[in-house]
């Protein structure tokens, strides 16, 4: 079985995987980082979004071996010293989550939106950018507010 080595949330990790192993399976099953979720099998829902080398990626659509040598950040890697990242805090403050299942993917996507669009986001931009993340609970209203508020807080 091929060996993979990568940096996940600042920790060097390695393992042997079947070639067909998806990055999300490696994260969830080998590393037991179960914050990254699987909500579909067609790369549509975004529950699995992580960052690979600083860019958002649907980890269900990438093989673990493709991430060999990469820097990977998952939802578990955002909080520092027990305090949440401003984007996580914004989701809590704006009730941007209900069941929590889509949430890790939403937060990771939100960070990527900020990285590419800056801290002052209008509603239309956020809605368009969230097109690849499905939430069944919130109706998006409060997710949009959360992303805007989180983006702003990150700029302060």
């Amino acid at each position, binding site marked *: 079985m091929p060996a993979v080595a990568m940096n996940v949330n600042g920790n060097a990790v390695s393992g042997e995987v079947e070639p067909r192993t998806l990055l999300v399976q490696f994260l969830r099953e080998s590393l037991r980082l179960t914050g990254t979720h699987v909500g579909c099998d*067609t790369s549509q829902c975004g529950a699995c979004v992580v960052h690979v080398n600083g860019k958002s990626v649907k980890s269900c659509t990438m093989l673990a071996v493709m991430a060999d040598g990469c820097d990977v950040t*998952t939802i578990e890697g955002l909080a520092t010293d027990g305090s949440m990242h401003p984007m996580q805090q914004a*989701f809590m403050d704006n*009730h941007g989550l209900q*069941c929590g*299942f889509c949430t890790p993917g939403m937060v990771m996507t939100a960070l990527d939106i900020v990285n590419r669009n800056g801290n002052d986001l209008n509603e239309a931009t956020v809605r368009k950018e969230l097109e690849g993340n499905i939430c069944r*609970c919130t*109706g998006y209203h409060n997710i949009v507010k959360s992303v805007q508020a989180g983006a702003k807080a990150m700029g302060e």
Partner: protein
Amino acid sequence: MVENGIGASVRRKEDKRFLIGKGNYTDDINVAAQTHACFVRSPHAHATINSIDTGEAMASTGVVAVLTGDDLAADGIGPLICGVTVTSDDGEPHRAPAHPALAQGKVNYVGDHVAIVIAETLAQARDAAEKVDIDYGVLPAVTDTGSAADEGQQQIHEVAPNNMCFNWPFGEKDAVEAAFASAHKISTLDLVNNRMVTNPMEPRAALGEYNEGTEEITLHLTTQNPHVHRLVLSAFNQLAPEHKLRVVGPDVGGGFGAKIFVYAEELVVGWACRKVKRPVKWTSDRTEAFLSDAHGRDHVATAEMAMDENGKFLAMRVMTQANLGAYLSTFATMVPSYLYAFLLAGQYTTPLIYSEVKAVFTNTAPVDACRGAGRPEATYLVERLVDVAAADMGLDPAEIRRRNFIPVDAFPYQTPVVQCYDSGDYEAALDKAMAMADYDSFSARADEARTRGKRRGIGLSSYVEACGIAPSAAVGQLGAGVGLWESAQVRFNPTGNVQVFTGTHSHGQGHETTFAQLVTEQLGVPFENIEVIHGDTAKTQFGMGTYGSRSLAVGGVAIAKACEKLIAKGKKIAAHALEAAEGDIEFADGNFSVAGTDKAMNIAEVAFTAYVPHSYPEGLEPGFDENAFFDPLNFSFPAGTHICEVEVDPETGVVEIVKYTAVDDFGKLVNPMIVEGQVHGGIVHGVGQALLEGCRYDSEGQLITASYMDYAMPRADNVPSFDIDYAPTNPPHNPLGVKGCGEAGAIGAPPAVINAISNALGIKHIDMPATPENVWRAAQTAALG
């Protein structure tokens, strides 16, 4: 106001774990020596099974077991049940074909369970599943709701001639006919309530563990009601005695009804883990979820309204054909009958209503409750028919509603369809919504849109629903196999913090926060010292779970009653400690005090005294821990008016929702932030049904919308932000004054959206989903394009 008490938008206790990736969903749980399961499913909609050869699969790498329906039957497990009886017009109970958890000689829909393959890894299980060799004898399939019972159709179940489950007439047929015969005007509408796939974002999963020493099975399930699962699996499916079966619903990623039911996979995993003496884990992928989760809605109906010359409703007649799928899911029969026909009065004084519901079997996945369950179907029909009636009478849709509303002074109001509405002010909600939506100046906006080649439309929906499910005596009379009370336990620990055990289940609703607010309000214990515990039959005494917007309206009251018992006991303890008469003790803000003195004791001190009863009232039990059960006296009746304004591009058929207003009556709000979130989510569920979501089978029974590529879920850019407000009234039967809010949006939205599109195009009706293609065709027909 108590800090973090009733009425405060407290931030949620549950959020942190979800936000930092520390949620604990079923698939996140891994146990030692765990195996992985894959189900072999039928690729055919309707077929006999001539033979199953598991030899090659068994020999496949890593395989632990391959089990089929024969193995299940040999162990006397199953079949799955439907828990509500509906009496058909021949006086017989509904037809209930056997629903084996693994097929017995025949499959009846694509995705039907044939075998389970258990292996060391999921990949090995999947590889081996492909090697199970099944010889099918393919039969013609029945998939269309409207024609499933027609003469000459392929028969699916021997026990159900003409594919009929039941034909359920309800109401005074002759009186309705007489009213129609003498009516000034009759409005008629044919409509389809499109089939939905419920689609909570977390797919279903099951993890079964068997302890040979204790002979106990522990099942972690994606369930909305762990005790209901345990009861059914034990009492009806013979999985294990109730006291030897533990069901845990850990964090659950949304339910919307789809996780109420007892599914084949859950029973089979529970049985298989004992058989192979290893933990067995199964997690659905999304395709399996589309194929095998219970679907929702799927009606075809004809509705007629008889009116006098003032547009006053005289009588309504509704003929409905409802698709129940291939087998009866756990509550399937109740949804198109009691949860549907009993809501056909809507907000109106229509004195006579007659309905007939024909429920049919087809070669499709079972159909059961989906957010709102029956009530969205009723509301859609009524609120669309009312708009058609308004057009036929030349009245504004708001005006015809006003003329027929149950007036505010008429409550309690006995409808002709069983329900007795306890409270409401329908006109207040309508007025407020119209003001917020700027209804009166709509025509100026429509004119402006026209200059840009667009068509604007505005649509009202004034809904009422029956929640707080449910008074046990009422549902018992209707043929339900269970009571629908709720239970709670409120336990002080000796150090003064509180654990609240509830039989309801939170899978997004925020009970851990809302219920803690109730307790902090009532007992004065700081919010952060209260923990709400749910979802584990080994922890919580009993409970009927979460659906039908019942958790606060029923479960919340049980908590309040347990708190009352604690206060009563605390008075005895405080009286003894403070050397006063029990009758002189008052309780407020967490303190027991002697009236008219400054002698007082905090409830935490009382709790400590109860656990360390060195000096204690004679004869009083130690401990500070109380149970309560609550059985509601009536349903609750949330209601409201939703107004949707759309802009349609007749060239492309694209519909944009430009403004959406909702004014709801949920009674008292415990956490307004959470309530608003429930409304948002419900509306988008309803908008999804109205604009995007349509589950389709082809004539051979293949599900052609089996992924998010083909089944359009509402996404962030399909919907706007919403304007939400309330017009509350007090429900006299509910001790907390609450009504329930979880389903309102999904009930109110579909007719508001379709009324708006019909208004925009100047057409009588368009079926859901109003996709660009359907809207474009309608615009072409209306010669607008």
